[in-house]
């Protein structure tokens, strides 16, 4: 069922991590990405992973559930490992056949590659697992607020984003229903060549588009009818608050970033 893989895969547990301000989590996202690229030695990865692991523990999400998110990029991981193994030719040769040489340097490098990609995916998943799409858009809007002075329509962009996010699950549900309805009329989607399969998608795509346009129309009408005006200063039902937990998170994140950077710069010889 598509409803289970709905965008963002929010996994509610009500933990400390879930309650953090979305701005903190967005900052964390940036820190994680920078760390993933700065981490240059296995020691640096150890620190990053230890940090990530404690975040997972704090979030109370079953670690296996977090690990599942890697599935989506498994192919990328495998391919990059193979490429690195076969084409990295510094270090002593461990094994060679035809033009392919596997060196100990290649092995080490491929290992780091795996750690890096996994870290990227796992850490960014931790953000989407612990915050709802709405929270993230709210946070983003707040962060982008200074752009208002450059005449950038911050609020409009935010509202567009949250409407889009809001409708992803709805459209997925709708897709489910349309697929079922056409299957009930004997449609099958896994027969024949590429052309036949693409054609078989039409009975799903056309009603889906029609319904998306219909919904957009209705929503626009509803917004109009209530005199919705995106540009005025609006108040929020859930006001974002920066708490002590957020401050702590900020400090820890900064520490993690600094250590990784220092290792990268060679100041800490690890």
């Amino acid at each position: 069922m598509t409803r289970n893989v709905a965008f963002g895969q929010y996994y509610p547990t009500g933990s400390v991590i879930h309650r953090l301000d979305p701005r903190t989590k967005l900052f964390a996202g940036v820190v994680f990405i920078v760390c993933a690229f700065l981490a240059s030695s296995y020691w640096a990865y150890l620190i990053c992973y230890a940090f990530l692991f404690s975040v997972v523990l704090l979030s109370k999400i079953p670690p296996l559930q977090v690990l599942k998110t890697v599935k989506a990029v498994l192919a990328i991981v495998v391919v990059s490992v193979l490429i690195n193994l076969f084409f990295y030719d510094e270090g002593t040769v461990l094994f060679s056949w035809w033009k392919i040489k596997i060196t100990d340097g290649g092995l080490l490098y491929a290992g780091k590659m795996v750690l890096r990609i996994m870290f990227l995916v796992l850490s960014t998943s931790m953000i989407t697992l612990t915050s709802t799409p709405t929270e993230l858009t709210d946070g983003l809007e707040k962060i982008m607020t200074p752009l208002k002075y450059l005449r950038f329509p911050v609020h409009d962009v935010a509202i567009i984003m949250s409407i889009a996010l809001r409708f992803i699950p709805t459209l997925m549900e709708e897709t489910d229903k349309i697929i079922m309805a056409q299957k009930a009329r004997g449609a099958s989607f896994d027969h024949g060549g590429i052309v036949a399969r693409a054609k078989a998608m039409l009975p799903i795509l056309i009603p889906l588009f029609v319904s998306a346009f219909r919904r957009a129309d209705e929503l626009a009408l509803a917004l109009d009818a209530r005199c919705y005006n995106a540009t005025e200063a609006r108040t929020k039902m859930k006001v974002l608050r920066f708490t002590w937990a957020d401050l702590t998170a900020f400090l820890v994140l900064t520490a993690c970033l600094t250590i990784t950077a220092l290792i990268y710069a060679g100041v800490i010889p690890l």
Partner: protein
Amino acid sequence: MSIVIKNLSCKYGAKTPFEKLALDGIDLTVREGESVGIIGATGSGKSTLLQHINALIKLQSGSVEVCGIDLTERKPDLKRLRKHIGMLFQYPEYQLFAETVREDVMFGPKNFGMKNEEAEDAARTAIGLVGMDWEEVKERSPLELSGGQKRRVAIAGVLAYKPDILVLDEPTAGLDPAGKKEMLDLITSLRQKTVSTVLTVSHNMDEIAAYCDRVVVLADGKKVFDTTPQELFYRDDLENFRLQKPHVVHIVELLAQKGVVLPHVLTEEALEDALLTYLRERRGK
């Protein structure tokens, strides 16, 4: 041409925080020629139950057998199964996709292996069954029809492949009173002419009372009643199950409070007859 469901349970989102037991040990048998109504609050699992009949949801536990096809088998013949069942979803007009009514109605027949000419014949007959004029609508785009007409075309698209059992999920939802009446008359006439076995989900107790031989009540995924409309709607404890009484039943009960005792009727026509008989008898005395 019957449906036999035994101990059927279904869970959505198993092993996630969103886990939901949508069906819980359902037993249900629908024999050929029966018209069975399914009622229950929103979220009680009615749609989920219907979708199992057509193997649109993977069977998790329990067994389902439809027209002799056993869905517990590893690879049941889904094409054959779905050919037997004419399934109409909620708001079926949203599944129309083709450029013309003709093509849309022919979609089903062609999927089930009819040749072009045969499929067109079937489509023409089906459009006739739903009371539309084939020559007039066949080249029109389904999207430019009115709401009621769209729904008729959608039904025709199901009838065209000549199913043996009709499975309808809230067929009158979103229609105006006249549209509702037409839809129900259509279903009644279909029962006499083409498909005799009908399974209907509805929120409208009046419809269930008037058109079904049997009612099944679901609550939180469990079957709580499986009986005749007469028996069910004349119970005193219906409110406990968040069910309303049909208007006719309500009138009969109000009259009974005033001392006018009538038989337990379910339709407006029957009520009218009962009242007339009552008045005649009183005058006789």
